[in-house]
């Protein structure tokens, strides 16, 4: 299927809380298998947009389609299940379970997603293969995440997003904790694995230097407008 991995249309989100923050996104899409870099500073609505895409927040108006499903129509529990099935998330802070081994961290999404689980024949072997492909030294798969270096944690987080080949990988500033050289190597590995899994990649960053590797670079400000109430 050469359709789109993600389509946003006429999106309007408003926080009910005190801030009175409003976010609009009239149109944006990512094609299947495409890699897109969203450039934007913090406070530009990045996190809110990602939460909407991941189905953590529900938009007030408009629609979100991921892998031919209208996410914005689903009930909260169904959105959780949908996220588990179709989206791999890489966080700025990696967000690994510190007490669990690298391998268990990678296997975690499969526990909540039958479709991704079905795509993997031997999950532990696949997890180790992914970790190895991402350049994690052998033997580290059994090590608890809190004992890994920052770079290693980064790779575990990527392997966790990639396992079971979800249609869309969403990455929030995954390189901010790395220096320039490691950044390059890391992105190479990430791209290789996304291609191998056939997943589309949507990365949010404030760093324009990495843009050359992506199919497309989009300024966040071009697709999203935000308003804050005067009180803020």
């Amino acid at each position, binding site marked *: 299927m050469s359709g789109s991995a993600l389509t946003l249309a006429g999106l309007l989100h408003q926080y009910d809380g005190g801030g009175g923050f409003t976010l609009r996104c009239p149109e944006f899409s990512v094609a299947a298998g495409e890699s897109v870099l969203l450039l934007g500073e913090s406070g530009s609505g990045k996190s809110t947009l990602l939460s909407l895409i991941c189905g953590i*927040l529900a938009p007030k108006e408009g629609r979100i389609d991921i892998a031919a499903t209208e996410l914005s129509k689903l009930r909260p529990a169904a959105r959780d*299940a949908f996220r588990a099935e179709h989206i791999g998330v890489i966080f700025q802070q990696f967000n690994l379970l510190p007490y669990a081994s690298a391998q268990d961290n990678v296997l975690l999404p499969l526990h909540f997603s039958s479709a991704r689980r079905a795509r993997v024949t031997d999950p532990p072997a696949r997890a180790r293969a992914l970790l190895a492909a991402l350049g994690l030294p052998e033997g580290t798969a059994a090590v608890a995440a*809190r004992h890994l270096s920052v770079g290693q944690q980064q790779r575990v987080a990527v392997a966790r997003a990639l396992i079971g080949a979800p249609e869309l990988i969403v990455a929030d500033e995954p390189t901010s904790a790395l220096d320039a050289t490691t950044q390059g190597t890391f992105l190479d590995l990430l791209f290789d694995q996304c291609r191998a899994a056939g997943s589309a990649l949507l990365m949010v960053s404030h760093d324009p230097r990495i843009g050359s590797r992506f199919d497309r670079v989009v300024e966040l400000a071009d697709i999203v407008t935000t308003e804050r109430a005067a009180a803020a």
Partner: protein
Amino acid sequence: MIFRLAFASLLARSLTVGMTVLSIALSVALFLGVEKVRTGARASFADTISNTDLIVGARSGSVQLLLYSVFRIGNATNNVTWESYQDIAARPEVDWIVPISLGDSHRQFRVMGTTAEFFERYKFRGGRDLAFEDGRGLEDLYDAVVGADVAETLGYSVGDPIVVSHGLASFTEHADQPFRVAGVLEKTGTPVDRTVIVSLEAIEAIHVDWQSGGRIPGQSTPVDEIRQMELTPTAITAALVGTESRLQIFALQRWINEYPEEPLLAVLPGVALQELWAIVGVAETALIGVSAMVVVTALIGMMAMIFSSLNERRREMAIFRAMGAKPRTILGLLVLEAALMAAIGALAGMALLYAALAVGRPLIDAAFGLWLPLDPPSLRELQTLAAVIAVAVIVSLLPALRAYRLSLADGMMVRT
């Protein structure tokens, strides 16, 4: 795998989790310990007298008869005449009969007059015999055998002189006829420990110069003369009876209860003990209640611990959510965690109790005469453990629901 993760998460917080598990373990050990002591005490109580088929005394209540004849608490309202005693002893159903004569005391302990047969016939704890720690039984008229508590409290050993007081709390002493400690009994955990045993004849002997509770003025029969006298008692307080066959117990009991010459009462010790336990047993309910409260306190402590850990664990829960876990999975995870802690605590408590029992059993027996059996856990104990886990699950629902709400609000983005 979720189970493994929950376990790993607990291990990662081993200090607080360890304290919580420890408090649950201690409370469970206390609860089961109280339960053990309670059943042990009950069994021990029921074992105060065994292999005796009937206790006979003057007509009163069965509990009262048991209290004064076996526990040496309170007094007999009336005596049994020697003629009645002999009538009973002559019955064909009677295998053996041991008379008991009470009424005098030595310091704070009761003096009991009986025959040498008492040492053979009196059994406790399922047929155990009285045994001598030191010395021998009653041979001379002025021999006395003292129980373990008497010997310990008053520092008596074989050969020491004893002067018996008249009545139970009096300053009139039978000073003219001192006894000699002939034997010291081993600890039994029964009222025998607190008894000074002399022969029935000796009780008569010290009362030769007495009449209706008072000394006959000016009269003092020399000991040599007394030794020559016929010292058959005119009355006894009670008697322990063994029958030829257990089937005859009830027939003999009816015969005694309907004895026309004198109002008598015969009771089955087991039945009377049960009646008495029904009265004493109220305290055990209170004990159980208190120790159950301790268990509940420990579980509430666990709940507080989970509550206070929620904030630092918001990130962990957000990770689960980002991976596609539903808020209800988060709820389940916390409940599972509580159940795990309670299960580990309960098992550790049980292990603790058995370890303590294995070490402390002989000490408890020596100090209190309470023999606690080291049986495999009873169904009731297993039920208790299950109940602890069930209550843990219930109390953990409160923090789990809060986690549920937090994870709904936080989603997968926790700003730290």
